[in-house]
Every structure is written in structure tokens, then in C-alpha cells.
């Protein structure tokens, strides 16, 4: 694999020295990252350091937590996402998310996929079926489920359910897909499938993943952001670099300690 040069890629998402608070708890401190377009960026770090919090900054899912407050700018392209000019709904249309555990809705496979587009105003049946076919094909699920689209999504295996959830996010044609440890609840085979999928999807989408799995980060990500809590228990960005570089020659001793498994 050739070396990844972040300079050559414009950032699709940027945080500018953001601070995130949950009530009086300082969760993220002074974090500046630029997520490159059409690449996979991995957020890594020990448990509880704020990886998922950073991921949820990008689609404002932290807003659900009472007392959550963000300082600083976050830009999607050139648009500030924490401003009145962009609605949360528009943001989430452009920044999709896949969760740790598969979370299909209690509906049929078909309804799960068209759920987003339908509620964003697409009523044309032909158009919805195109979306269905395209999204399921993108996650290599079409052949497996095309004869049972009306069956409940719960009848699928966990791995298939997770791919369904990825397809559900892709059905919205987002610019960015956030994946919050989306393989951690799956068996190795399903994990491999999803990793292959991510490598295909990055041709078209910008992907941000949170992962505990260092091998996974090294296998599939182009950029890595290493987050750790500092002395005041706030999550800070220790290092942000092309993954290969970070793993072969970390600039910070804390990064070295973490990726070589000395703690975490």
C-alpha cells in the first residue's frame, strides 16, 4: 500500500480546538483534527478516553446527553455544524452512523433500508427500490436477502444485521460514515467482511471509525488519531498522523506505550 499523504486530501470534517463538557466534566480538551476525504480515519485510545465522544461530536449525537456542551468550531466542508445555519437533521443526513451493536429497527429488511430516505421525503416507489438495491449491493447483502426483503431484520445473523445497518446509513447517501466499534460485537469472519467492505466504501465515502483493536486500525485505516486522558482527566489528542507512520515511528512516547500494549 502506498503511503497516505494527508496533505493531498482536503478535510471533509474539521474540529478547531474544540472542548466538550458533560456538565462539569471536561470530556475532550482542545482537540483539533481534520478528517480526510475518501479515506478511513481511526480514532484509537484507552477505554474512557473520549473516542466515542469525539465521534459523536461529528453528528451531534452528544446533544442527547443532558448537560453536554461544545466549545469551538466543527466544520463539515465549510459549514459550521454547531450553528443555526445547519439543522441537526441536515447534518445527520450528510454524516451517517453505524453503532457498536447492530440496531436494526423492528421492521422488515426492506423497511429498514428505506426508512431514512422515506422520512426525508422520498415517496416514489421506484426510487426507493433503486435505493434499496444500491444500498444492499454496496454492503454485499443483496444476493443474500433479495428473496426475503419482507422478512423481519431480526432474522438475519448479527454480521448480516450490522451490514444491514451500514446499508441503512448508506441509503441516505451521506458524505461521511461514522462507525463506533462496529465490529466489536461480531465474530472474526463477519469482522473481516465488514473490514473489506470499509476498504471498498472509502472509494466513495469518508469513514471515521472508533476501534479498540490496534491490528484493525493498522489493517484498514489511513489516518489515526490517538486520544488519551491527561492529568486533569480530560481527553486530549496526543497524536494525529498517517496510521503507518504512527505505528512505525510514533512521535510521542505515550503513543508508543499504547500501541505496543503497555497500557490501555
Amino acid at each position, binding site marked *: 500500500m502506498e503511503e497516505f499523504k494527508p496533505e493531498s486530501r482536503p478535510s471533509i470534517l474539521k474540529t478547531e480546538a474544540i472542548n466538550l463538557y458533560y456538565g462539569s466534566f471536561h470530556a475532550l480538551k482542545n482537540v483539533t483534527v481534520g478528517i480526510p476525504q475518501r479515506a478511513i480515519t481511526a480514532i484509537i485510545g484507552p477505554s474512557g478516553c473520549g473516542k466515542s465522544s469525539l465521534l459523536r461530536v461529528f*453528528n451531534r*449525537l452528544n446533544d*442527547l446527553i*443532558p448537560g453536554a456542551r461544545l466549545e469551538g468550531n466543527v466544520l463539515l466542508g465549510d459549514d459550521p455544524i454547531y450553528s443555526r445555519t445547519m439543522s*441537526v*437533521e*441536515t*447534518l*445527520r*443526513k450528510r454524516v*451517517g*452512523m453505524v*453503532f457498536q*451493536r447492530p*440496531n436494526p*429497527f*423492528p*421492521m422488515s429488511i426492506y423497511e429498514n433500508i428505506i*426508512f*431514512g430516505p422515506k*422520512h*426525508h421525503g422520498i415517496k416514489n416507489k421506484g426510487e426507493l427500490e433503486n435505493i434499496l438495491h444500491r444500498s444492499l449491493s454496496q454492503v454485499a447483502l443483496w444476493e443474500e436477502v433479495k428473496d426475503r426483503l419482507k422478512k423481519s431484520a*431480526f432474522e438475519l445473523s448479527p454480521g448480516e444485521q450490522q451490514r444491514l*445497518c451500514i446499508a*441503512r*446509513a448508506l441509503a*441516505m447517501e451521506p458524505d461521511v460514515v461514522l462507525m463506533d466499534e462496529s465490529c466489536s460485537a461480531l465474530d472474526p469472519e463477519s469482522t473481516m467482511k465488514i473490514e473489506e467492505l470499509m476498504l471498498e466504501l472509502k472509494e466513495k465515502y469518508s469513514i471515521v471509525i472508533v476501534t479498540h483493536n490496534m491490528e484493525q486500525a493498522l489493517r484498514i485505516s489511513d489516518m489515526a488519531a490517538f486520544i488519551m486522558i491527561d492529568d486533569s482527566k480530560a481527553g486530549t489528542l496526543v497524536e494525529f498522523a498517517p496510521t503507518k507512520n504512527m505505528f512505525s515511528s510514533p512521535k510521542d512516547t505515550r503513543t508508543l506505550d499504547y500501541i505496543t500494549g503497555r497500557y490501555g
Partner: protein
Amino acid sequence: MKKFNEKLSGRVFFILALSSISMLALITVFIISRGVPLIANVGLKNFFGMTWAPSRGLFGITPMIIGSVSVTLGAAIIGIPIGLCCSIFLAEFAPVRMREIFRPAIQLLAGIPSVVYGFWGLLFVVPFIRNYLGGAGLSILAGSIILGIMILPTIISISEASILAIPKQYLYKEGALALGLTQLQTIRFVLLPAAKSGIVSAVILGIGRAIGETMAVIMVLGNSVALPTSVLDPVRTLTTNIGIEMGYAKDEHQQALFATGIVLFIIIMILNSTAQYLTRRKR
């Protein structure tokens, strides 16, 4: 000795438990034994006829069925939307502190004796309708308003519980919000469908409560046995018919009231078992 005591106390509990079931059996047998012969004697055509005139041997309960249905329907139209909105508010919007005030307050609503509801209706709702909408005030509308309020605790507590019972780890809400749905869309298209069986049984149990209620409606319905033409007309329900006439009914007349009871019994049994079936059925 100890073992004997254990055994004995087990028996005692069993017998006491049995007695509550046997009460049900006793009442059921009693009502049926009193009511069924009348229906057999006068025939279904008379019993489900349009005229209730016991002195002339006419025992048609259809006007009362219409009364019960119209008042219950009115109560449902008033109580279900308010109850559902309230349960959604409590489950999804209310801050914890507010929930802590609302919940016991709604339970208190369930604890008010029905005669007090009726009395309040008579002194407040009835004059209000008489003054502002016309008619005598004693009407379907008055009964519907009172019953609509009385069924709120049932609807609210059961629907709220069923919304809150959607397991958090399924991430339905986060999933829908992450797709860019608004909070209202998320509730409407994901949470309510997921809680549907509980909500439907809440509604059914509320309706059952409305059909069975007697004391509160006796005071505000006007109780005339006539076919209503508007919601401002008085009606008599199956329950109030029994409540009003049981004091002086004799012989066939009394049997006819028990037969009315059988009809009520069957309606409520069907409603309750439907609700139970829906609550027990899991996906």
C-alpha cells in the same frame, strides 16, 4: 413440628387464594343463573329490542347499549389523545424532576372515588355545558368528559411503561436520530410502533374501565332511556340502568338487570383478555 407448620401455612394460603377465585365463580354463576332464564323466556329479539319497559314485559337493552357505546366512544376520543400525549411527554421529554411530580399526581387521579368525579361533574361540567352549549347539560358529552378524565391514569401509566420498556440496548432512538429524523418522527415512526402492543392494551383497558364505570356517570348522564340524537342528549348506559333500577326491581325486571350484567361481563371479559393477550405476546 416445623415442617408441619410449613405445610399448614402453605395450605392456608392456598385456601385463601382459592377463595378469591371461588368468589369470581360464585358471582359468575349467580349472575348467569339469574339472567339467562329471562333471556330464554322473552327471547333475544325482545332482549336486544329497542324498548325498555319492564312493566309491559319489554326488556330491550339496545338503547342502553347505544348509551354505553356513545359515552365510551366519547371518553375514548377525549381520553386517548390526552393520555397518549401525556405518556409520550413523560417517557421522552420530561426532565426527571418533573416526572417525579407528574407520576404520583396521575396515580392520585386514579385514587379519587368515582362518586367524587360524578359530583364534580354535576356541579361543574353539567352547568358549563348547559350554559355554553345548550341542552340540559346532563348529557353524553358530560359523561364522556368525566370518563375521559377517569381513564387517563390507566392509559398514561400503561403506555408510559411500555415506551420505557423498549430496551435501551436496541438503540432504536439513536438509530433513528442518527438517520436525521426529528425527535417527533423518531417517536412516531420507531418508538410508538415498538411499544404498540402495550399502548393498544392500555387503550383497551381504559375503554374497559369506561364501560364498567357506573357511579360517576349516573350523576351526569341524565339517564333517560331514549335514543340520543346529539352529544348534548341524555342517555342511559348498561351500568347506570342496573344502578338506577336495582332498588325496586322485582321478578322478571330484576332478572333483566342481571341479564344486562351478563352483557357487561362479556364485553369487559373480551376487552381484558384482548389486552392481556397483546401484553403477553412478545416479538
